[in-house]
Structure formats: C-alpha cells, structure tokens
C-alpha cells in the first residue's frame, strides 16, 4: 500500500515538473514586472500590461495568421501529393515503381544541413526572399508522408478497388472518393506531423524572411526576444511566449491522443 502511495507521489512530482513551468509562465506574464521573481504564479495585481506591450510592438496577430496560412497550405499540399504517390506505389503497376519507392526511402536519409545553404541561395536567385513562396513551395511534398500513405494503403482490400473499377471509377475517383474516407488515420498522422513541423520551424523562416509582415509567429517572437524590442522586460518576453504556446496547447488538449501517437510513430520509423 505504501509502495503504491510512493508510486503516485513520484508520478505526480514528475507531472508537476513538466506542467508547473507552464503555469508559472502564464502567471508571470500576468504580473507586474517587479513581482516576477516570485516562486508562485499568483499576484494580487493581475495586469495585461505585458500583453498590451507585445501587441503594440509587433504585429503578433499577423504572425499568427501567417503561420496558420503557411502551415495549412503546406499540410494540404503534402496530403494531396503524398497520397497520390502513396496510392501509385501501393496500388498501381508501372515501370520504375520500385525506383520511385527507393528514391523516397533514400531521400529521407539526407540530412537537411547539407541542402539548407544551397536551397537558400536558390531562393535568392528565384527572388523568393521575403515571399510566402519561400516558406511554402520547398515544403510541398514529403517522402516520409509518402511512405506513411503507401504503408496504410497496402492494407486496404483489393476487392474494394476492383469493385469501384467495375463501376467505371477512375483511379483518381478511387483515390479521392473511396480511399480518402477510409484513410483518416493516415491523413491525420501526416497532417499532424506536417502541420507541427512547419508551425514550429524557425531556422528556415529566419533565413528567408526579413519583412515583419510576412514573419511566422515563432520567428517574430524569437526576434522580438533576441532583438531587444522587448527591452529586456521579462514579463513581456513571457507574454509573447504564452501567445505563441497557447494555440498549440489548446490543440494538444483537444487532440492529445492523436498527437502523441503520430509523433511517437514518427520517432519509431525515423
């Protein structure tokens, strides 16, 4: 009995260790600057001053909209193009199919560090610096997503596809009208990984975007903290961090199970 009690104590202490800093961050962002050093998140003088300061200094809502716009476009594109390739690899027969499959496997192993500088110089040559194009277009397909779709589509019964063909359905019709509704788990996984990946990316936006109106939210908050605009005020930096964290935390609370599953599965296969 005491052993069980001890177990719960340790598990709860663990949970506190991971959750409390977030609670403290929220609390500190609502305190006046002089009270931030305190250990508790509470204050008798709750104030939104830090948030007002952030909103006055940087177009953070614009940053949120930019992030949303870029992440949604990339995610939609990755789902459409990758499911097409996944379907072709799993369900169609054509010369070179194995080659494409192996290409997808091989390209996953190429570390991004190798191509990031040449890709940047390419964006300069295309005139895509300070354009949404640089954030969206290079990320529009994903070899990893292709492998997820291929794997999933191999498990769909062939009889279903044959029946649709007999009804005169084209392969496009089969993919988008019959396979899609059956592939929700695969689509969900690809959507979560792709969306989170783009949403949290900082290095690439930092390289290709300098115009504040086009910045994604994490880039804007990073430069706000590093660049001195926050005027070394702790509460203000924390308020910006809270605004950046909030959409993700809300999504996490709602879709916690799917998020953990998708991210863990990407770890297992990587």
């Amino acid at each position: 009995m005491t052993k069980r009690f001890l177990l719960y104590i340790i598990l709860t202490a663990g949970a506190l260790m991971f959750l409390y800093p977030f609670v403290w961050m929220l609390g500190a962002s609502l305190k006046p600057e002089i009270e931030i050093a305190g250990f508790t998140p509470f204050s008798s003088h709750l104030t939104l001053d830090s948030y007002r300061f952030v909103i006055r200094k940087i177009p953070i809502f614009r940053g949120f909209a930019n992030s949303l716009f870029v992440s949604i476009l990339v995610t939609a594109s990755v789902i459409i193009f990758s499911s097409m390739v996944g379907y072709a690899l799993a369900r169609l027969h054509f010369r070179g199919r194995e080659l494409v499959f192996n290409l997808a496997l091989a390209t996953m192993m190429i570390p991004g560090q190798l191509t990031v500088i040449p890709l940047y110089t390419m964006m300069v040559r295309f005139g895509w610096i300070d354009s949404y194009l640089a954030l969206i277009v290079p990320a529009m397909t994903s070899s990893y997503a292709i492998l997820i779709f291929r794997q999933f589509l191999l498990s769909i019964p062939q009889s279903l596809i044959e029946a649709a063909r007999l009804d005169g359905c084209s392969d496009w019709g089969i993919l988008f009208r019959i396979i899609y509704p059956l592939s929700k788990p695969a689509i969900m996984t690809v959507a979560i990984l792709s969306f989170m990946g783009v949403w949290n990316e900082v290095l690439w936006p930092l390289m290709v975007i300098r115009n504040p109106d086009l910045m994604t939210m994490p880039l804007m908050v990073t430069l706000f903290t590093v660049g001195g605009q926050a005027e070394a005020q702790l509460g203000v930096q924390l308020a910006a961090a809270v605004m950046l964290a909030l959409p993700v935390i809300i999504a996490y609370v709602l879709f916690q199970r799917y998020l953990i599953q998708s991210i863990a599965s990407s770890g297992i296969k990587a």
Partner: protein
Amino acid sequence: MDRSHATDRVGYVMVLPYLLHLAIFLGYPLAFAFILIFHRWNIYTPMKFVGLGNLKLLFTDPLIWRAFFNTLYFLLIHIPLQLAIALGLAQLLNQKIRGRTFFRASYFMPVVVSGVVVTILWQQLYASETGLFNVLLQRVGLPGIPWLTDYRYAMPAIAIMATWKNVGLYVVLFLVGLQAIPSDLYEAAELDGASAWQKFLRITVPMLNPTIMLVLVLSTIGGFSLFIEPYVMTGGGPASSTLSGILYLYKQAFFFNKMGYAATIGFFWAIIIFTVVILQRRFVETEAV
C-alpha cells in the same frame, strides 16, 4: 485479371509532381552543395573557385571544432539523463495505475510546444537573481549558479533544458517497447527467484535494446541540430561555450556572407549525422537477424 499485369499509365501522372518537386528542391540543391564546397561566394559577386580551400579551412578552424566538442559535451550530459529519466518514468507508468493518460500527456506536453517557447521560459528559470532555480537553491541555503553566464554551466544548462523538452517522447517510445515484452519472461524469472533489479538488467534492458538505440540516435541527431536554444539564450557564448554547428553555419552564411564555407560546414555536419543513422540501421538489422 490481366489488368494487374498491364501498365497503369496514371501512375506516372501521380508520381510526376513529386519527382519534379524532388528534382528542383532536393536534387538541385544537393548537386549545388558539392559545387559550393569548392568555391568562395558571397551571393552578390561571381563565385570564385578555391579548390580544397574550404575543407582546409574547416580542419584548421578552431571554432568548428569548438562547436563539435560543445555538441559532444551536450550529448554526454543529455543522453544519460534522457535515458535514465525516460526509462524510469516509463517503468513506473507501465503498471495498472489510475490516471495513466494524464501522466503520459503531462510528460509529453513540452514535446509539442515550440522550442522558442521552451527557451524563453527556461531563460527566465535560469536567470541568476530572479530565476526559479536560483531562488530555490538560495532558499535551501545554497549559493546560486550563474547558469547562462559562466562558460562551465551554460552548455549543461542547455542540455538539461533539452532533456526536459524531449524526454516525454522517449517515455512514450519506451512504454511501447515495454508493452511488447512478453510477460511470461518475467514470470519465469520470478519462479527462479530473480530480484526486481535482476529482472530489469537481464530482461528489460536487453529486450529494450532497439528502443535504447533509437533514443541514442534521435538524441544525437537532436544534439547536432541544436540551433534555436543557443541562438535565443546565449548567442553561442559565453566564450563560445554554447556555439553549435548550425549556429556557426548560420553566422558564416548570414553575418559574413560566406556561402561556400557555410555549405562546407553543412556538409561536415551532414556526414556526422548520416554516419550515426547508418550505424543505427546496421545495428538494428543485425539485431533482427
């Protein structure tokens, strides 16, 4: 019947956009990387061929080796900490307990939150006068630690933060691994009178070998990809003690406009990561046989 042997032309149409995209945004930069390595280029004026100049520079540049050893130092602290905490929490969670979903979800929370948020938050926790850690230390009568301003503590501080951010993912991976271990192994060991510690060392650890390997590889890749943490927290300092390879690459490219040298650093870093991945594949394949 015969259909399965005929060629589905539509297949070519379906893979074409991917292949085009791959050729332009991966194939071309990949080829261009190998040209850049042999040139000096500031983007604005024409490229200048320098032969092996960039590679020579790489091997004699003290800062890139500084970044390399900084990364090793980071991994030396990060990996054991990560393995111990993740394995410990996963073991505790792998029992019949109430609220398992809640515990798992709370450990996983920092994994989904942006690295920028975590870095800004921990920068405050590490602050020398007002930070939570030093306030706690002083409360129990210990002197505060200059976490981010002393070259001896800055990298360990980043390693601890990175552990906090990532460990939830590894708890989940270890849980998956633990649940795959057949329970009759433990039952047989119990009949033979094995202690809990013996069971852990002789059954759990060997059976989790592939997962442990995976955690090692993912953490190593993470270590060599470190960028936003030193960029926000320390700018690579104090005294270059937190300079990471990617931060150095970024500085060479964007502060000094040295595209050729930056590409060479990227090449060097990519080789290291590639080697780690290949070693892991080898290991897992021989394991499976």
